[in-house]
């Protein structure tokens, strides 16, 4: 940890990661970041009712179904994680 970090919020990076799931760090992979983006997006769609309504009309589904679908998609939004090469 750098000397400068000791005084600000990043001094508790672990704590931060635990509290805000979507926060990142220098070793985050492209895949992990993409997953976060996707989940945030779905959460946002679900959270804004007009968005949900918009998607429902476009896909000709009920709003509840849309919400359910989005939630399901949050499980593995980008498919299975890629194989790790090392460690």
């Amino acid at each position, binding site marked *: 940890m*750098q*000397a*400068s*970090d*000791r*005084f*600000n*919020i*990043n001094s508790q990076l672990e704590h*931060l990661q635990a509290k*805000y799931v*979507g*926060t*990142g*760090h*220098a070793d*985050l992979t*492209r*895949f992990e*970041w*993409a997953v976060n*983006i*996707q989940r*945030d*997006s779905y959460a*946002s*769609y679900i*959270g804004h009712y007009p968005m949900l309504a*918009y*998607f429902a*009309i*476009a*896909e000709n589904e009920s709003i509840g179904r849309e919400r359910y679908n989005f939630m399901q998609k949050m499980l593995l939004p*980008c*498919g*299975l994680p*890629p194989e790790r090469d090392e460690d």
Partner: protein
Amino acid sequence: MDAIDAELARAQEERRKMEEALAAGAPMAVSSVTFDTDLYGGGGADPNRFAGYDTSIPASEDDAAEDDAEAAANPAPRRLASYTGHAIAAADLPRSADDDGPPKGAPRIIDREDDYRRRRLNQIISPERHDPFAAGEATPDPSVRTYADVMRDAALQKKKEDLLREIAKKKKEEEERDRERKAAAPEQPAAAATTKRRNRWDQSQDGDAAAGAKKAKTSSDWDAPDATPGIGRWDATPGRVGDATPSVRRNRWDETPTPGRMADADATPAAGGATPGATPSGAWDATPKLPGGVTPTPGKKQRSRWDETPASMGSATPGGLGAATPAGYTPGPTPFGAENLATPTPSQIARGPMTPEQYQLMRWERDIEERNRPLTDEELDTMFPQEGYKILEPPASYQPIRTPARKLLATPTPMGTPLYAIPEENRGQQFDVPKELQGGLPMMKPEDYQYFGTLLNEEEEEQLSPEEQKERKIMKLLLKVKNGTPPQRKTALRQLTDKAREFGAGPLFNKILPLLMQPTLEDQERHLLVKVIDRVLYKLDELVRPFVHKILVVIEPLLIDEDYYARVEGREIISNLSKAAGLATMIAAMRPDIDNIDEYVRNTTARAFSVVASALGIPALLPFLKAVCQSKKSWQARHTGIKIIQQIAILMGCAVLPHLKSLVEIIEHGLSDENQKVRTITALSLAALAEAAAPYGIESFDTVLKPLWKGIRSHRGKVLAAFLKAIGFIIPLMDALYASYYTKEVMQVLIREFQSPDEEMKKIVLKVVKQCVSTEGVEADYIRNDILPEFFKHFWVRRMALDRRNYKQLVETTVEMANKVGVADIVGRIVEDLKDESEPYRRMVMETIEKVVANLGASDIDARLEELLIDGILYAFQEQTSDDANVMLNGFGAVVNALGQRVKPYLPQICGTIKWRLNNKSAKVRQQAADLISRIAIVMKQCQEEQLMGHLGVVLYEYLGEEYPEVLGSILGALKAIVNVIGMTKMTPPIKDLLPRLTPILKNRHEKVQENCIDLVGRIADRGAEFVPAREWMRICFELLEMLKAHKKGIRRATVNTFGYIAKAIGPQDVLATLLNNLKVQERQNRVCTTVAIAIVAETCSPFTVLPALMNEYRVPELNVQNGVLKSLSFLFEYIGEMGKDYIYAVTPLLEDALMDRDLVHRQTAASAVKHMALGVAGLGCEDALVHLLNYVWPNIFETSPHVINAVMEAIEGMRVALGPAVILNYCLQGLFHPARKVREVYWKIYNSLYIGAQDALVAAYPALEDDGDNIFSRLELAVFI
């Protein structure tokens, strides 16, 4: 030369005269000889000589929690306005160790501890124990101590104690018989008195089993089981059963060694018997009747007296609490005191290695010697000029002082330590400079040598075994933590933490824990060592299991420390320990202590258990507690179990509610226990539970109501008090109907107990009455008719005002009653007492009236009562002699304010009094008179007595020459109050006369004067600036600059505000010029305040009047000035908020320049200016300028200086608000996956704060990622389009 001779002759003549006078016994002798009163005390007749000592011992022990709260709220006596507080108040304040005695270094913990707390040194650090979790199925090695071993030992110990007690009892009986035979000793009546009293409290079964020592303790103290510190004090004098009045003084100084005294020496924890390890409770060895018991040899007696002589020489007076024979020269049963103390050699000094106390004393001794050594001729030659002095022959009668004791101690090798010897005396050596140890280790204090001595051996590290090397390493680190400089300490602490698992639990704790038992430990050192344990615990986790008990032995005493922070620290450690070791291990470690014979051990264990409960949850502990509380084996176990529950309630407060029912069920049988102590503690625990649960949970107490009810009818004495307390706390939880019923029932008992002479009973009764009265459903009429008469008869007596706790409780209870029955009833009853002849009593009356009237107003008070009241307060106010708490003043203010316009007829009289008192000789009286004016100014206005106020204004104006700063401050405060009320135009003396008079007062450096003066000047500048010529205001401006140096923030704030008012009145130019000039000064605080003032001037006079000059000032090529300008800009934009949008373009070039400056501080300050600017103009259409500035801010993200990087990050956060997160995200994207980790780290840091700040808004701005094989990264939903 002749002149000198003549002078010498005259001096000699004078001295001879004085000597003659002395010889003749002239009365002037004593007073005319001056000597250092600090060291030698104030002569024989000084009444304050024993002011620091306890004159009485608190009777109560049971409400420790209350004490805790008090101690927390009232951390130190330093808050007192003066040191001349009246004795009653002073006696109750917690004393700090440095009040008396010679000036010492850091305060040692042991010096402020009482005997009870000092018992911690009796505990032994037990060997480590078997950890069944780690061992798995394997049978434990016979060499390790298992739980079974410990329990067996405990049982044996108990048996042994029983046996000893039995012996003691026999002896006592024999002696009783002897005494009966002899009969009619002169002190017989006194002895009878004690036994009588003892019988009253100790009627139960266990009482007679107790030995004399125990008896003296329980009989004289209220609530032994619940004992906090006080109890132990009785231990100090266990031997004197026949001696009814143990004199404190004798105890301390021990002038006459009585036989009782010899037993005494053994009873003090330090002296600790022959084998310290075997008997943790020294008190029991001290069988009070000497002949058979300990058989001290005459040699021993002698030694114990002689030992103390050098001690008191070294440290003049053994300070504070330490005075109670602080361990003399024997280290007590700490594990290292290995030598056989039971066979002392006649010559103390020739004995083996010295104990830490001795070292300490030696150190003082040496220090004093060094300072007081006679000057040599050479030294004198260098000090005095060559001419004008003459060396005289010493008179023939002169005999140099030769103190044998001092000589003895001055010899260089008083102790034959193999490790350390006091070096040869060397006059030239600087003793103040500590000797450096090799390897950058910090200085070692003498008392550290026994722990760290091996570090001095200059062995080759390579030759040591790995184990030894490790040990050495740990010792080095610990020494650095304990004695090192802060940076050393920090790195050492970190190393200890990081390598904790590598070092292993055993070696670590074996080194740390003995250090904590060191008797000379100071607060700071203990704090550091405890911190080490905490850190190490965290790392070691389950490896600590075998050491749990060891750690507890050292940490538990912290739980009863008088220092609040020590208690918190102790709780934290035990909580962490229980989380690391787990419940099973904790219980296994502490179970044997639950029925320990030593009350101290049980007390601390109970407290520790409550901490475990709060750490691991009450439900986890419930089954265990249930078993303990029902223990058939010993009442001690039951007692401790119930006490644990009490402590849980105190510690956890309303968090007990979910488990209330089970907790009550566990202890309810204790109410009918055969042992009286168990019954008492049960009732107290119920009280604590009810207090914690209030106002909920009555249903949980259903089952105990009946036994409690029966109890208060069948019990007497302290059990009754405890039961009453329980009822008192349960009643407020009830429904109105029940509460009323129960109150009426319990009130009969309470009223009976009103007349109890016992202090503790009094306190509890008051508390219970308060609880009952405040409960809904208790009718005013009932209180008025049934309670009030008896209550006032028994409690409103002078004696109650003398003890501070009684006083407080009585006032609270009476106020509570007034809330029910109204003002008139209560005030009517006590108003006459305002003229009582006892001042403390008058003060108590006044405080009650003040609180009642402030709560309920004065509308109830009729004309007659009003007259009496005013008359009374005037009398009480005038008659007061000492009042540090301002009770009279507050009372007067409260009554006058409550009466409002009804005071009008009395105002002339009041003002007359004030005027007369303003002229008093005593400063305190003048101050109070002035303070009173500021309290009643508003009411005077209400009564339209403006003329009177004007008159007072003139009077006060005349007193502005006051020389006592406290009084002057009050006078200014009074003037301020009058000006505030009657306004600038009507003020007499007119403002134009008043203000010039205030200008010189601004120079006064006293805080109170400064504060009141600046407030008054600021007020005038704000409201009446036009009455004063501009030149005067400029003069004031210069004075104000000095004010910016003030320590108190309030003064500095008032000053900068005043700058604003003045600037508004006379225009900003001149003020600004003054302020800008002030930016060149050196002091940082002064510059900072100046920048604030500039910003305020800009805010009050509009920024455009100030900005040009300010920005022009930036051209001055001087670091401080430029930074000052930037800082002013930062404050300016902070204050003007959205008004900033008009100025942002004007200052952008300046900020550009600053953000590109080489100097870090420039960039930092500019960044914070940018932050405030961005936050101010968010949403006002200044994005172009902001983006431009962001481009200058952004390159600074790689700065490492903490202040700069913080400012930069905050500027970026500000930009996020003003520009929207999408912009910042786009700045971020370039670096999130940068090949260099350092870069990535910084960018992710920015990303994270961005994400936390605007998670949702980022969704729209995330980049479109390309799919990667099976993984789909694109967000198809965003392409949906209707």
